[in-house]
């Protein structure tokens, strides 16, 4: 009989690993300071700011309309959503009514962009999980949307399409038909993705019961968008505080429903994105059927000076709530422009939920939050 080994003799040292800012799966330049005991992570502290470009300061230094291109760079995967959110915010501040058709066009391009953004989110999440092929499938479909946007505004990634008071151009002829074609092409593909990887046993086992966030925690820590809905809480700004023409549209708020494992785990957040693509296609179809004719631009003076005032506007972007807090002093520039983004708040909770997971799960967590670094760092 050997002597029982004392706990002190079995003590292992923790070590600190630096993950990022250049790491293949941190979706850009996120840096994490991992404190691990072997493979088990005891602490993961995000270190942000490697892409801090001072957008808020720039917003104070350029004219109201000139800030529009910078919103593209705020969330480059969903440029249209940020464009439109900023435009809506400024219009709310200045009390501008925009033409009906412009609202419908904005909703159309926002939902298309939501699809393309979720495609990359899905693909890169799968790539993080080791399956490289879905990423390329996602991008293959994204190219369709890129082509559509290229028809609309001539750019693939940074669109600069919305304007204060409407949108820059009307939809080109043939656009709606092409979009319908895309919807017909894309909708069956979602099932194909599910067959390809979603219910793959390895993926399910990697994702279920990992990074569980209860709805209460999610609200407490300020999560929003698919990350919050993945916890089973039906909170979508398009429904909760409707803006634009969303009240007229019929779509469901997708929530996580503990498909495999616990409610609010990585797999639920993953599924919410997959299902949201379906809902977006549904919205796009409705918009195609119901879009009215008319002008796309309201009369806005060339030197745009909104009245002095403050306004907080929030819109549902693919990564959660994109909020603009605008303060105008009646001048040509914003007095203060504060941007509130979904990814930033997702990083807030990261340190809490990453206790006790393994190094591989850290990658899954980052992927499931679908963070994008210019949004966190601005």
């Amino acid at each position, binding site marked *: 009989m050997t002597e029982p080994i004392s706990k002190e003799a079995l003590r292992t040292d923790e070590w600190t690993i630096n993950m990022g*800012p*250049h790491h*293949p799966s941190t979706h*850009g*330049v996120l840096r994490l300071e991992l404190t691990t005991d072997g493979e088990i992570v005891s602490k993961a502290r995000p270190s942000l*700011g*490697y*892409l*801090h*470009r*001072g957008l808020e*300061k*720039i917003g104070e*230094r*350029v004219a109201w309309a000139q800030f529009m*291109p*910078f919103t*593209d*760079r705020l969330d*480059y*995967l969903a440029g249209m959503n940020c464009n439109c959110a900023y435009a809506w915010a400024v219009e709310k501040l200045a009390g501008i009514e925009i033409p009906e058709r412009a609202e419908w066009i904005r909703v159309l391009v926002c939902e298309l962009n939501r699809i393309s953004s979720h495609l*990359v989110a899905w693909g*890169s999440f799968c790539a993080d999980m080791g399956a490289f092929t879905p*990423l*390329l499938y996602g*991008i*293959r479909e*994204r*190219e369709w949307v*890129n082509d559509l946007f290229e028809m609309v505004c001539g750019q*693939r*990634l*940074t669109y600069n399409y919305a304007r204060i008071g409407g949108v820059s151009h009307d939809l080109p002829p043939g656009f709606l038909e092409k979009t319908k074609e895309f919807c017909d092409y894309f909708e069956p593909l979602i099932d194909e993705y599910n067959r390809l990887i979603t219910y793959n046993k390895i993926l399910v086992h990697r994702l279920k019961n990992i990074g569980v966030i209860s709805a209460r925690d999610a609200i407490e820590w300020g999560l929003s968008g698919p990350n919050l809905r993945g916890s089973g809480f039906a909170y979508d700004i398009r429904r909760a505080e409707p803006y634009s023409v969303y009240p007229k549209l019929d779509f469901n708020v997708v929530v996580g429903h503990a498909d495999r494992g616990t409610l609010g785990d990585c797999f639920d957040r993953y599924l919410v994105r997959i299902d949201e693509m379906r809902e977006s296609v549904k919205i796009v179809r409705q918009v195609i059927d119901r879009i009215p004719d008319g002008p796309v631009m309201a009369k806005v003076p060339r030197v745009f000076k909104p009245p002095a005032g403050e306004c907080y506007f929030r819109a549902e972007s693919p990564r959660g709530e994109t909020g603009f807090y605008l303060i105008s002093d009646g001048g040509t520039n914003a007095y203060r422009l504060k941007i509130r983004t979904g990814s930033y708040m997702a990083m807030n909770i990261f340190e809490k939920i990453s206790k006790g997971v393994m190094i591989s799960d850290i990658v899954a967590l980052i992927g499931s939050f679908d963070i994008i*670094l*210019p949004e966190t760092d601005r």
Partner: protein
Amino acid sequence: MSQGPAKRKPIKSNIFDVVPAPAEIPQNVLQKNFERVRACKGGEGIIEVGIADLFINWCRKNSLWYLYYATACCGIELMQGGASKYDFDRFGAVFRATPRQADMLMTAGTITHKMAERVQRIYAQMPEPKYVIAIGACTITGGPFYKDSYSVVKGVDLILPKVDVYVPGCPPRPEAWIEGIRNLQNLIMKTKNYGLKKA
């Protein structure tokens, strides 16, 4: 594309330049090599060196593994460039996750001052011969953040010793990236590794 500060190298990519079709490049370079050899009265050994040069350069240009390095918007175009429609793999360019195995650094996206040191380190970690392509307005001049931002490095050539090819755009289309890679390949074919360095 505007000329940057004076210290920049004159060799720049311009997507409007007429570039010879890929099939012609080896022939031209072969001819030039032979002309160089003929001009130099060194004996027969030099011909072999010239051909070795050609072969080595050919190998290097066709195997430009790039670092999977993306900071901002251009990174998405990097992904799309590697994917179905554009497929950098056709040119033998595959991505590597670690700088130790990469030949080419495509600085895709804005470099901030907080990031600058890391970029320098990544560059130092790459083995020679290494090439840098500055992709997009941000890494060429600071782009839209040139005037008003306090935290953006105004051009990646301020922090890296050399940039081989500049590809303008915000972000450049993947076609322009391919053009940049091809320009880099032309550049590689012109380098001299052996023999004629002193002449």
